[in-house]
């Protein structure tokens, strides 16, 4: 960051931001970036003949008598390359506006006393850092009034005029003018990091300063730094209002889902946003979907059969905000969706890091995680979400805190959709004898293993770690209790029932509730 050159002379745009010229009416503004070196209070035409270049000429008394006098003053100011002519309203006429435009000289109309204005201007011009400080203070006041991220960026862009400002998260623009991040030959970028909770970088403010006005850079930097707190406050406020936030996020994700399933959308091409401003529903939430997305599905270890309780959503959101502040978290159906966005195809390293951060929490709250593949754009995100969900269901087998990556799952994913609980209930009716038996757990486990091993008792005994005869006797007892799997027409059904019961009983405490 450059040091602020506080003694650099003011330009016209800066003077126009502070009193008294803030109240002036700009009849014609030729070049707002014109430097202003001194102020001339011109009372006579003789005085007008001695203007030096880059002056503010304030007309007064005889020189501000109106009619021809303003025309003559404009000409004199133009001849001597003055920056701007300031005239009392009484002396203004429409033809003078035309002449100012024709000569290309800035013309301001004031209602205040020209002598007072000239004196104040003289003070400002002789101490540019004071004028800048006033301007910065005014801007800070306006920034403090803002309650949304868009509002803060709006104030910055209005204040800086021809210097575009944008807020970026991970390199993509989430608010402000996208022109700020574009690399341009005659522009210099000023960047200010915005740190979130725990001094972690959350976002970056970027301004693109035209090189001719490069000594403005310091001033721009000051304003950007001032905007950090209001930005964080706006962001935090939005996050605090969680019930609204949850609803908003759900709605936004539904929008994304709809966008992703648009048949017209080319799946290979990431969705392009309009250059000027990102779409409000995704940018205000801080979501990024351009580039490559990899989704995580978080699910309770047991299929709850309905939406998880809202308390759990709040707990999860709090954890997310603490550990992974730039990852979205959206409640969806029987679980939660989060995703990691990167500009280009990733190797999964970042995801692995994120997962490692999350695993202790998942274990505490009896959750499992499924990770989808990396795909481009919104359609890619949607695909990754489905994959992650399947992987999460498969992960339930591994117990709380387990993580499954979709590319490791394969066809096994098909089993993830089985309504294990309902099938187990069916067993209560069809296999009442077996369910009543005290050793049902070992019987079912043994039959399942035998079926898994294609009927081979020796393989099953090896997997179970018991003697072949034990396997044989358990199978015989199971057959007595109704688990007769010799009949080919019933074998698949019994295999599925055994799988469901096994999956259900494997979770701690599950069998007790049966």
């Amino acid at each position: 960051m450059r040091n602020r050159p506080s003694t650099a002379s003011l330009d016209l745009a800066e003077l126009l931001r502070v009193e008294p010229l803030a109240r002036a009416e700009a009849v014609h503004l030729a070049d707002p970036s014109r430097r202003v070196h001194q102020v001339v209070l011109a009372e006579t035409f003789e005085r007008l003949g001695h203007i030096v270049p880059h002056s503010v000429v304030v007309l007064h008394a005889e020189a501000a008598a109106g009619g021809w006098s303003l025309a003559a003053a404009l000409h004199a100011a133009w001849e001597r390359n003055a920056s701007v002519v300031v005239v009392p309203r009484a002396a203004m006429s429409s033809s003078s506006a035309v002449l100012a435009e024709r000569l290309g000289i800035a013309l301001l109309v004031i209602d205040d006393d020209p002598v007072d204005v000239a004196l104040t201007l003289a003070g400002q011009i002789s101490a540019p850092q004071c004028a800048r400080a006033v301007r910065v203070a005014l801007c800070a006041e306006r920034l403090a009034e803002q309650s949304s991220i868009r509002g803060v960026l709006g104030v910055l862009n209005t204040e800086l005029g021809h210097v575009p400002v944008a807020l970026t998260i991970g390199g993509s623009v989430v608010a402000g003018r996208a022109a700020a991040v574009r690399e341009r030959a005659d522009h210099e970028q000023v960047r200010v990091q915005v740190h979130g909770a725990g001094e972690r970088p959350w976002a970056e403010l970027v301004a693109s300063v035209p090189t001719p006005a490069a000594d403005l850079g310091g001033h721009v930097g000051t304003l950007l730094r001032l905007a950090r707190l209001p930005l964080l406050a706006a962001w935090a406020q939005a996050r605090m209002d969680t019930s609204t936030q949850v609803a908003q996020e759900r709605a936004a994700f539904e929008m994304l889902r709809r966008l992703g399933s648009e048949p017209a959308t080319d799946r290979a091409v990431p969705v392009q946003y309009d250059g000027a401003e990102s779409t409000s529903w995704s940018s205000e939430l801080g979501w990024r979907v351009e580039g490559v997305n990899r989704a995580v599905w978080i699910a309770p270890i047991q299929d709850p059969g309905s939406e998880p309780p809202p308390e759990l959503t709040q707990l999860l959101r709090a954890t997310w905000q603490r550990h992974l502040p730039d990852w979205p978290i959206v409640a969806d159906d029987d679980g939660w969706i989060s995703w990691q966005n990167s500009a280009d195809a990733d190797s999964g390293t970042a995801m692995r890091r994120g997962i490692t951060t999350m695993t202790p929490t998942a274990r505490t709250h009896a959750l499992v995680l499924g990770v989808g593949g990396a795909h481009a754009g919104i359609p890619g995100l949607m695909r990754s979400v489905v994959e992650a969900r399947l992987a999460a269901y498969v992960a339930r087998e591994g117990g709380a805190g387990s993580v499954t990556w979709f590319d490791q799952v394969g066809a096994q994913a098909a089993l993830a959709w089985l309504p294990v609980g309902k099938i187990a209930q069916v067993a209560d009716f069809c296999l009442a004898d077996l369910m009543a038996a005290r050793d049902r757990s070992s019987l079912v486990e043994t039959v399942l293993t035998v079926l898994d091993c294609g009927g081979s008792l020796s393989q099953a005994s090896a997997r179970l770690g018991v003697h072949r005869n034990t396997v044989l006797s358990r199978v015989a007892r199971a057959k007595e209790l109704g688990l007769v799997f010799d009949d080919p027409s019933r074998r698949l059904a019994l295999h599925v029932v055994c799988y469901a019961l096994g999956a259900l009983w494997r979770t701690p405490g599950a069998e007790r509730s049966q």
Partner: protein
Amino acid sequence: MSIGYVGSGKSITAADIPALYEGAKFYSPAVGDASKASLVSWLMDLLERNGPVVLVRPDALPPQVHCVSLCVIGSGAALADLPPSGDEFVLAVRELEHVMHRRFGAVYPLAAATISALVPLAAASQLDVPLLDADGMGRTFALIHHTSMSLAGLSPAPLVVRGPTGETVTIEVRASARADTLLRSNVDTLGGWAALASYPCTAGDLRRAALPSTVSRLINVGRLLLEPVGADVLVTRLAAVTGCQRIGRGRIVELEHLSRPSDVTIPAHPSSVVIDEIGGQGRLFRLELRSEIVAVFADGALAAAAPDLVCLVDILRGELATLDSLEPGDVVDVLVMPADAIWYSAEGLAMVGPTSHGIPLDHPRRR
């Protein structure tokens, strides 16, 4: 009627009256044509009855011949409301002869322009004396001491004003500038306008103090103006005879009234005309008006100013545009005519230059 420049005439006949009228109007383009018909026919009748008036240059008379200037003072509107009975000028001269105990052997116009260029002719015919081919202004200025005689040290006093009501006021004053002030208040009382006989002096004084050939010039210019030709030809011919120059052609886009606080010394309301130049550099002309056009600004730079005579030629009609007939949308040529060289001296400019109209800028001819 002969056309073209004929040099200085020897006499003025009834046939010269229309040309004289037009020329007189040209040198003071502010005035309308309200009383044209009655004035021209009265003068023509007079000259037909009394015969041509002899026109002589001051140096053609013996130097000791006493001469007196005549003019109409007051407002044109009052003159139209209360027309002259015709004897005001003769009686003003007679009264001054009575005050000064001398006979005048010649009369001359105080300002060879407007109606003031015509009344000395009538008086000369009625008094049966020659009319001098000379005047004190070469155009019109607002105040009676704005004359070459005044610059040469001659006094306007004693002077006599005679109003249309038959009353006479004689003013004896030492300071020239005071004469005008004393005069104005009396003119209002006399009916708004009056015949003024002033600057009594000898032909010898006028040889050095008056501006020569300014009456015959009116007739020459008037003949050009009476010729129905296009505006371009007219402007070219006028330039040849009068030395005038066209600053530019443009469309009137705005009339501003009372754009400045009124000056107390000049009896007229200021206003402005804004003209957008057609072709050329596309400049924005601003004309400052008092009782005449006193300054022309081109893009804010002073391009011409009093004592230059600025007049506008209406392009569509091919004739002079009087200031009271201007309207937004009119296309006009802005003509600038130099005044007599005497007015560009330091004393002359101080008297009738832009500063006297509240425009404290250097005159473009002296920069």
